[in-house]
């Protein structure tokens, strides 16, 4: 299991290749990459703040739970902080399991929990100014299905 919280960019393809390499007991590798989205065409920058220390422990706890529940062979979580430009990857998760259902479900679970239980906060900067992104009720509700 690997959890990385970093300001540096990462290469999602290279990370996935390295995660999937040399696995023999695994039939499925699933990955998700989150990208900075410019919804209205005016986003200059996204600033991501986090809680150093709690971020790593909260993600490790979520990843541990995924490993237990879906008997994962391995899991990778990378999440960035700091200033990001539209189109840049923010984060990725990858899961490795014997079968695809477990790998997909665990990745979905990880994403739902990272959204609402990992201490990150997003701020969007446009020509009009900067505004914190509000958490959505739908994201909190999504946790109930697990």
């Amino acid at each position, binding site marked *: 299991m690997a959890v990385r919280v970093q300001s540096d960019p990462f290469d999602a393809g290279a990370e996935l290749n390295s995660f999937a390499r040399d696995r023999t007991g695994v039939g499925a590798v699933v990955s998700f990459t989150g990208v900075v989205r410019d919804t209205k065409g005016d986003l200059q920058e996204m600033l991501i703040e986090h809680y150093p220390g709690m971020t790593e*422990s909260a993600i490790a706890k979520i990843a541990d739970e995924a490993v237990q529940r879906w008997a994962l062979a391995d899991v990778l979580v990378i999440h960035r902080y700091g200033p990001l430009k539209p189109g840049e990857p923010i984060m990725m998760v990858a899961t490795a399991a014997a079968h695809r259902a477990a790998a997909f479900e665990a990745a979905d679970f990880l994403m739902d929990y990272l*959204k609402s239980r990992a*201490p990150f906060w997003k701020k969007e900067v446009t020509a009009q100014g900067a505004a914190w992104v509000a958490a959505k009720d739908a994201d909190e509700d999504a946790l109930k299905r697990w």
Partner: protein
Amino acid sequence: MNVVYFAWVRERIGLPEETVDTDAATVKDLIAELSAREDRYAAAFADTTALRVALDQELSDFDAPLDGVREVAFFPPMTGG
């Protein structure tokens, strides 16, 4: 104890962290104590439904006791992923 603030809570209060000398028994008591200090605290803590709290880096709730806690963090609902 160390009190830390994130996102708009940090901006509204105007600092990222501070050491608070307090006998507050619970998180609620600490919020009342801080809110009584200055308007900027009262503004930040006006609506606790818009806030989350972590005690020693674990999510907690406003009724939780502060006995033995070294770090309290206040922040809005998280927006990771």
